[in-house]
């Protein structure tokens, strides 16, 4: 009896005070994925990686926007988005109080502008992504290949291909002409 009482006193109260006091959480806890809308370049790596498709990207080519959205009700808190994010714009924080009364409250969206091609005017990539690539490339001066890539950053892949084809044809014509001149 005395031994039991002593053990009880020694063990103390095992029950946590939550919800009357904040719960002790650890820094590596996988809680709510916090999205930093400013650091995000809307590249969509997280949407590709997300196993339950909680993160989705919806592109509207008419309006020129792409909407990044996360559904916390579908998230499985695996941290793959954090792993693939090239800018550390999303990370799993220790916030865990996510219960809601309305389902729509579980959804967070973020609208980004698209970049229009400087030649054909079609939207082809998020504006922030192109802007980020240009700034990254311009941090590596002295390389002609890099400089050319930076100059062509706001040209869409189709137009780049057309430029390449036109350049190749011109080179071919010049070559044929030179050959014809020789003969």
């Amino acid at each position, binding site marked *: 009896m005395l031994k039991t009482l002593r053990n009880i006193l020694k063990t103390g109260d095992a029950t946590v005070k939550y919800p009357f006091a904040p719960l002790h959480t650890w820094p590596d806890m996988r809680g709510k994925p916090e999205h930093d809308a400013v650091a995000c370049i809307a590249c969509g790596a997280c949407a590709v990686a997300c196993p339950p498709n909680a993160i989705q990207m919806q592109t509207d080519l008419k309006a020129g926007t792409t909407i990044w959205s996360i559904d916390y009700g579908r998230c499985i808190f695996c941290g793959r988005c954090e792993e693939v994010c090239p800018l*550390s714009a999303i990370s799993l924080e220790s916030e865990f109080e996510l*219960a809601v009364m309305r389902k729509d409250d579980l959804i967070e969206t973020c609208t980004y502008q698209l970049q229009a091609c400087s030649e054909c005017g079609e939207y082809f990539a998020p504006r922030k992504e192109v802007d980020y690539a240009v700034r990254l490339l311009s941090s590596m001066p002295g390389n002609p290949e890099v400089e050319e890539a930076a100059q062509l950053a706001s040209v869409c892949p189709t137009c780049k291909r057309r430029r390449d084809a036109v350049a190749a044809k011109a080179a071919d014509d010049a070559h044929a002409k030179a050959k014809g001149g020789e003969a």
Partner: protein
Amino acid sequence: MSLRKTYQVPESLQARLDKVELDDKIVAAKAALLNDIKRSVYIYRVDCGGCNGCEIEIFATITPVFDAERFGIKNTPSPRHADILVYTGAMTRSMRLPALRAYEGAPDPKLVVSYGACGCTGGIFHDNYCVWGGTDQLLPVDVYIPGCPPSPAQTIYGFAIALGLLGQKLHETNIVEGADEHAPLLYENVPYRLRVEIEREARRMAGYRYSEKLVDRFMGALTAEGVDVFSSVDALIANEPDPRKVEIFSELKDVLVSKAAGGRL
């Protein structure tokens, strides 16, 4: 016959049950009860097709550490005694009738809680052939508790919301990109290629989560002002008590040295 052919019941042969709608009298009774709740609430748990992770967390919630019973929340073995119905798992085709029977079996007014990612939206099984989505496809849900599975603390928070003891924190947010917004470059003062090599090596050594923190400290040493780069990195290594981190920092220093020797910064 192609290998992709699956033997699922065609949509035209599947009975799609209509969602249960509450009539005004029950809604009023529920509101009145929640306004002035003076007794304990009993919970009945329905697994509609989950992985059992949610059940384990529900049982963790009634253990002495989280002790949901101190609020009078008690697990009951019959829906006839229940005030709160907790639906875990995605709403599957074969569990829709048992789910409905449990709902009809519980006396009004009752609360329905959608528990876990699968209960809320179908979770990772949302596009499975036999999954209809979350509990809300069939029943009027009062509270959604997301998580995969929700921890005991999340569960207690969800019940507190259901009973109106706490307010909800999460709200629908729609952010729009600001005009002329630029994403900040990470470690702007460190040459890009060196940064990538260091990040890759750190990730190889420590995984994505810890490598980010280690790289952050390493970059801090690299960009420290007024000190020679190598001496500041050496100081970082010398001051680190954890031998594992020392090894990783040493490897990162090797990357730095080889890059500097090659002159390809």
